[in-house]
């Protein structure tokens, strides 16, 4: 996988300029020296194993990831991603330097570049697409080869861990995006800490993630759909029930909107008011199925 990712870097001069390597975080241990645990879906696993388990899931679903996303969300994930990117207005007041974490298939990066170009004639905004999974990056790279951005300084693919962006210097980016990725990370606080570090002062952290449905009735319907329909779809369309079972479970384990907003604050970001909606720290999409959180490095 690492070889595959390196080959992506070699294919263009710009990619070559970025050091591509996988950053590993060593197994963390508590003060007594015992291994710490985290959740992997509904299972409890040692922290050091989660990364491998998540990697296996995405290795398994990489080729059918977009098809499955369409099937699971009935195409709605496209609307959410459009909404997410248009709310950021990339390029509105000049070019941005963006980093898109867990952005393997290039969904968000492509939208950012298209939005800036189509709305503001901006061809200077650039996106570094970062993913821990080489297979997902390969999918993204393949997709970008079909676009005008291929072989331009506007896009680069880098294999790295969101929790340890060692090869990225401090205060580098104007915009940090992570869509449907942060819940798969072993330590969300570490991801936020790194996001804070690589953003320039005044830079924006934006996260699109599945969240908690606020209406109890709707939540009941949503739960039924998630636990009954999605794993079956996974086995029919991708031949992989377990990976999709994990995806559903990981959504339930992710913190609620206010808790995640507090984590963003704890990482040092300034956010809107601690409420949902206009001027708030987060905005629910479709009653909270997904949610956009934003923070600013002040």
């Amino acid at each position, binding site marked *: 996988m690492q070889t595959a990712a390196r080959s992506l870097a070699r294919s263009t001069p710009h990619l070559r300029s970025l050091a591509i390597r996988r950053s590993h975080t060593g197994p963390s241990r508590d003060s007594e020296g015992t291994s710490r645990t985290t959740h992997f879906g509904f299972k409890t696993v040692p922290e050091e194993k989660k990364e491998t388990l998540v990697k296996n899931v995405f290795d398994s679903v990489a080729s059918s990831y977009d098809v499955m996303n369409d099937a699971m969300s009935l195409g709605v994930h496209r609307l959410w991603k459009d909404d997410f990117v248009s709310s950021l207005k990339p390029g509105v007041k000049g070019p941005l330097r963006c980093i898109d974490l867990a952005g393997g298939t290039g969904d968000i990066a492509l939208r950012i570049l298209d939005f800036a170009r189509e709305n503001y004639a901006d061809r200077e905004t650039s996106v570094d697409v970062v993913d821990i999974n080489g297979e997902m990056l390969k999918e993204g790279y393949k997709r970008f080869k079909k676009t005008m951005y291929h072989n331009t300084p506007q896009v680069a693919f880098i294999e790295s861990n969101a929790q340890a962006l060692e090869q990225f210097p401090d205060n580098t980016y104007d915009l940090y995006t992570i869509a449907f990725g942060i819940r798969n990370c072993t330590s969300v606080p570490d991801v936020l800490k790194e996001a804070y570090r690589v953003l320039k002062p*005044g830079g924006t952290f*934006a996260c699109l993630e599945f969240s908690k449905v606020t209406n109890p009735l709707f939540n009941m319907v949503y739960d039924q759909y998630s636990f009954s329909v999605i794993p079956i779809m996974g086995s029919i369309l991708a031949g992989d029930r377990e990976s999709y079972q994990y995806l559903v479970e990981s959504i339930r384990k992710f913190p609620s909107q206010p808790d995640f907003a507090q984590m963003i604050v704890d990482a040092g970001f300034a956010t809107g008011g601690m409420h949902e909606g*206009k001027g708030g720290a987060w905005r629910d999409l479709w009653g909270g199925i997904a949610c956009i959180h934003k923070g600013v490095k002040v």
Partner: protein
Amino acid sequence: MATTNLRKQLLQLALPLVKTHGFTREALSLSALSLPNPHAEPLRDTAVSSLFGEGDEARRTLTSAWIDEGRTQMRQTPSLNVRDALHSRLRYNEPVLKLLPEAFATMALSSSSFHLIDPQPALKHAASVADEACVISGDTTTGTMWYARRASLAAIYSTAELHQLVSPKTAYEFLDSLLDTSTKVKNSLDEAGLFATYVAKSWAGILKSRGVF
């Protein structure tokens, strides 16, 4: 909480910029240049939207912060009575008087796509100024009088503020005349009430002496 402090800090720093940049997203954006560790460049539009809301919502946030600051300043200005308190609030408007009609219009415009007029922000603004003036003057009324006092002061202040927008120089006299009229009306009503009580008591006495009760 750190977030609230940082956001509040930026809002506070944006307030002095209102005079020169208006109730705009630009004022919010430039606030980052006045931080203790000033940024090298103003906040980007994305950051302004993330912190204060998209489009006109950010302007509403700034206007609300400016209105809140007005109440804080009322509290800090030494005032002995309602009149002084309301005068100091009108004085707070003066540096940005030309910008206020647009700011109030933005506040009144509902953020929905139908652009309906929303009277709530204006009512809330007037009510909060009236309440602040009552608190400053040591108002001790309770029950119905508590509401009546604040409602009349809110109406007086709103009228005076509207007058100030078109005729700033005569606003203070206008406010005084409204307060005087209100006091006279209140006194007349109090006296009429007292007289009515006497009449009622006399009639009760007459009827009692006639053996009706």
